[in-house]
């Protein structure tokens, strides 16, 4: 329990959550879980009533990745005029609070932070959005059926780096404040909505954490898989068989909060004007490595499929000490070929010796 990195704790009654969101909406944009055709999605809300605050099966269908790395992001605008071409960067300056973020997605964000600042090369589009966001986590008391964050060391409660983390205590939430941004969103004009943390908060939190950890149904031993990849112990035939089932739909990487590959294309709106856009890409697509002239170094589906797993579980782990998988289970829900992270890991462990 000692490793929790809250600099301050408070509590808030559940009745005060909507007033808190309403107060935020007076000064900033707010993103919160919303119900949409039976699914829970993170969306910008216009009023506190729109937020979905009841229990739902975690994680929400799409991660919060798109608020930092949108599926389509205009990065530049260009205009051709009499004085030549003028290029203007389009960096979002929008301030926002994201409410109800789960530990897996939050850990994924801290992982993406490493990628977007790696090698001393800083991605301003991502980092500006990071800087302009305050994140309010909601710890998971009840993991979903495909979740395995507990084995990826990314949940069910966030340990560090959060601005605010709420832990469901029944009628109220324990409010763990972890950063100056967290202080700002719980202090000042918001302070009156909060009360001191209850006496037995630490014990109660610990019990809830244990209870949550006890409910996981999906077990994934990532570190053994990483070892097997490093030692080249997974037979080719296993990859061949798994890769055959890939439909090349791209779903796995679109839903994955750790997938950061992108494509860049220009879009003309007239002869004189246009945008440069970056879009999500997927390393399992054949066009991903296709070069002019037709040479394709990863022309085989098997190689592309292997790349996805080697990158996440081996190369990124070597580079950052963290894997590109936080165990959110979304690829399990998505993949039509049933060749998601959890199943692949299981197959490798069962047969890949």
């Amino acid at each position: 329990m000692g490793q929790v990195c809250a600099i301050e704790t408070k509590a808030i009654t559940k009745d005060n959550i909507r007033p808190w969101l309403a107060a935020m909406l007076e000064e900033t944009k707010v993103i919160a879980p919303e119900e949409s055709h039976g699914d829970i999605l993170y969306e910008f809300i216009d009023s506190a009533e729109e937020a979905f605050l009841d229990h739902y099966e975690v994680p929400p269908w799409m991660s919060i990745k798109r608020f930092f790395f949108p599926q389509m992001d205009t990065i530049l605008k260009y205009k051709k005029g009499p004085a030549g071409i003028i290029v203007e960067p389009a960096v979002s300056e929008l301030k926002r609070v994201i409410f109800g973020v789960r530990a897996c997605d939050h850990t994924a964000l801290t992982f993406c932070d490493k990628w977007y600042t790696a090698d001393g090369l800083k991605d301003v589009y991502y980092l500006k959005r990071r800087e302009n966001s305050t994140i309010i986590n909601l710890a998971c008391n009840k993991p979903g059926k495909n979740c395995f964050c507990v084995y990826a060391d990314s949940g069910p409660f966030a340990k560090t780096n959060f601005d605010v983390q709420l832990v469901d205590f029944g009628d109220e939430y324990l409010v763990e404040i972890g950063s100056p941004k967290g202080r700002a969103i719980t202090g000042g004009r918001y302070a009156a909505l909060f009360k001191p943390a209850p006496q037995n908060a630490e014990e109660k939190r610990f019990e809830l954490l244990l209870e949550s950890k006890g409910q996981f149904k999906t077990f994934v031993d990532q570190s053994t898989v990483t070892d097997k990849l490093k030692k080249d112990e997974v037979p080719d035939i296993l990859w061949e068989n798994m890769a055959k089932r890939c439909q090349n739909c791209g779903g796995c990487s679109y839903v994955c909060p750790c997938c950061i590959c992108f494509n860049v294309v220009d879009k003309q709106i007239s002869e004189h004007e246009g945008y440069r856009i970056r879009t999500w890409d997927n390393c399992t697509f054949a066009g991903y490595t296709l070069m002019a002239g037709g040479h394709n170094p990863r022309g085989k589906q098997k190689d592309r499929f292997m790349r996805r797993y080697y990158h996440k579980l081996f190369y990124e782990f070597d580079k950052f000490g963290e894997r590109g998988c936080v165990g959110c289970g979304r690829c399990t829900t998505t993949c039509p070929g049933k060749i998601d992270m959890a199943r692949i890991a299981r197959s490798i462990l069962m047969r890949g010796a």
Partner: protein
Amino acid sequence: MENLYLPKIAMIDKISQETPDVKMFTIKYKDPKDEFHYQAGQFFMVSVFGFGEAPISITSSPTRKGFVELAVKNAGSLTAELHKMRPGAEIGLRGPYGNGFPLKDLKGFDLLFVGGGIGLAPLRSLINQAIDEKSNYGRIMILYGARTHADMVFKTEVSQTWRKAAEVITTVDMGENLCDGNVGLVTTLLPKVKIDVKKTKTIVCGPPVMIPFVLSDLSKMGLADTDIISTLERHMKCGVCKCNHCNIGPKYVCLDGPVFTYAEMKLMTREF
């Protein structure tokens, strides 16, 4: 925070038609305060606005200042658009990117260049630098192969200028070779040069099909893997190690390359 993706506007100053599908563009920054600082072997991400960006090697030598030269093959949508442009047209440049050739390691050695097709473009940067700084190097030998005589790039340099300072042999895959008569793959030129393997470093660049053959022949001639230097090409979308397109195993061609020794390339056992 600097914006990694923001190109600087540059202007096409001169264009020369090198082959039916390769043009060389001499380029200057639009803002005269901007200067080119680069090493041989590096590349630019070239913007043709409305058509995107493509990685293009620098073919001019850093010893010749005030401009940069890019030799571009018409290979797709962006490069076709570039080929339609006239002097005075504006493009964008980001970079230079990549590690460049390891000049420190080459100093004092004989240099054997082996180029195929447009692969001579990145080599030309180092060839002209070595010629301009001749006292730093021993012999300069250039073996160049093109599909046909018409497909030879930098013809004046290959057939005349370089021959004043270097030993040059060319070949064509088919048809007549008006330069020096050799017909056959570029590997057939290797036995024609007498090299001292202890004193020689080779630099190889060409199409993906050519590279493995040349590298293995050079090995057989007794050159150490660390003395064989080559460049790798991958689909690139950013040039700054963010888009993930150019990896070979854990290495990124845009950041760790595009220049690698044969010893390094042999460790890249995983394409994925």
